[in-house]
């Protein structure tokens, strides 16, 4: 445990002492901020129009019309940002030779894999958590329902676990950060578009594709619905990827 903590802390410091953490978080905030602004202003226009037409008729729902689309947008934006978070993880150590230090120190591969995963995951967590500030504005000037928002964020964080683990795995395969980033990007895109493929293919195959699609599992979360099957999907994806990372480190020892 102490060793996981030591590696976690060093990696995290590495991210925050270089520009990378700030650039990634800043970029993410700008893009999500733009979406938030656009969704909010169109929501306000709409609700104003409704107010004018029907005097005191049906109420507009901020959760359904504004927050849910925002969360869905965010779930796609993270697909683009996660490769930038995870590309350094193992590739950098391989390139600079520090992996030799880690692998000849009295550490287990599991400790290394978990320490590095947790550092990248915390960076992701911080990045997503900062966008919660947008929600705070909604709470100050409106009355959105809390639980759907909370569940939506849980969904984003769970999905991120799987994707960050995937990024770590791909980063463990190469010593080139660019290759790691592009590879991770390709893999996340594949997990996204496979859902569209699901809509176009036959019944059984379509069902499988839809099940594999990482964004499909998020839809229930965005509605504020909790379903354990999605939790199981995200957790299995995370553990599968961590297991593959472990295998990749172990086998790189054999290959040299």
């Amino acid at each position: 445990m102490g060793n996981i903590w030591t590696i976690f802390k060093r990696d995290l410091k590495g991210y925050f002492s270089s520009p990378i953490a700030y650039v990634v978080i800043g970029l993410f905030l700008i893009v999500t901020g733009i979406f938030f602004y656009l969704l909010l202003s169109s929501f306000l226009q709409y609700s104003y129009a409704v107010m004018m037409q029907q005097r005191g008729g049906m109420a507009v729902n901020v959760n359904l019309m504004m927050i849910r689309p925002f969360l869905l947008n965010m779930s796609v934006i993270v697909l683009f940002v996660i490769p930038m978070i995870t590309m350094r993880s193992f590739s950098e150590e391989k390139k600079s030779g520090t992996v030799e230090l880690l692998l000849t120190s009295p550490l287990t591969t599991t400790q290394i894999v978990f320490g590095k995963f947790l550092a990248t995951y915390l960076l992701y967590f911080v990045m997503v958590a900062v966008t919660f500030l947008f929600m705070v504005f909604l709470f100050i000037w409106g009355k959105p329902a809390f639980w759907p928002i909370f569940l939506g964020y849980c969904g984003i964080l769970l999905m991120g676990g799987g994707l960050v683990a995937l990024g770590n795995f791909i980063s463990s395969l190469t010593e080139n950060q660019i290759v790691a980033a592009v590879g991770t990007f390709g893999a996340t895109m594949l997990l996204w578009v496979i859902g569209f493929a699901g809509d176009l293919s036959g019944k059984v195959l379509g069902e499988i594709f839809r099940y594999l699609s990482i964004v499909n599992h998020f839809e229930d979360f965005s509605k504020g619905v909790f379903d354990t099957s999605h939790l199981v999907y995200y957790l299995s994806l995370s553990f599968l990827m961590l297991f593959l990372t472990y295998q990749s480190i172990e086998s790189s020892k054999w290959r040299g």
Partner: protein
Amino acid sequence: MIEVKNLVKHYGSVRAVDDISFSVEKGEILGFLGPNAAGKTTTMRIITGYMPATSGTVRVAGYDVFEDSLEVKRRIGYLPETPPLYFDMRVRDYLKFVARIKGVEPKTIPVEIERVAERISITDVLDNHIGKLSKGYKQRVGFAQALLNNPPVLIFDEPTNGLDPRQIIEVREIIKSLSFDHTIILSTHILPEVSMTCNRVAIINEGKLVKIDTPDNLQTQLQGSEAVTLEVEGPIEEVQAAIQQLNQVTAITVQPSRKENVATYRVETAAGTDLRKELAATVVQNSWGLLGLKSEGLSLEDIFLRLTTKEEEVN
């Protein structure tokens, strides 16, 4: 302290290490000597537990490197060919990190860092960023990192590689000073380095252990196989044939000179024989002109070349 038995390592179909066995006693400095890509680094990486062997065993302080790899890793300080440094860290933070993962008691870490820094003389750069240090200092931080937690065994892969002459001398001093209380394996492809720093030399070539002995012994062993150079005026082929016929001649190399029929012959003979008289007699009997004759010992450089060059057989 270190026992290597029948070590073999394949990379695909390439045999990087081919049946190497040796042992290192406590307090010894063993030098791996060999051309690049001879298998030195691979052997070291297997000993440190960085990669497993295809077959064979390595024991460090009684622990098997494959079975008890954590116990072995606790007892080895390793400096790879490129020092494993995080350039964005300060030296002190880096050493703190390494001390932690090496299992130094958290309370004693500052003391341990001071001890190591003083020993390697990097106290004055402890608060600098590693990326901004000179190459020599980076190498020193690499040494410091290996010394943390005071492991009994130290392994240095090409510790003087890429340093300038002054830094090389400093590094040798460091290694010598460490030899009092550590067992050390180091590798190099520079010959004088071995005779200057090591108790024993293992010459490795193409994955095989060619010879392992003290530098002095290697030198005397092969010095015994006296080499004589003589300059003779006479038909080169005939002279060569005549010399070849003498007893105990093991090798001849001919170097023709600019003058016709004049060449320098380097004649190597079996241990303990001095062929100068016979050589002189042969030349005179054939009424060629003997222009020069001198006996010479083999330098370590020659030994290295002889032992690692394919065409020539040694024994």
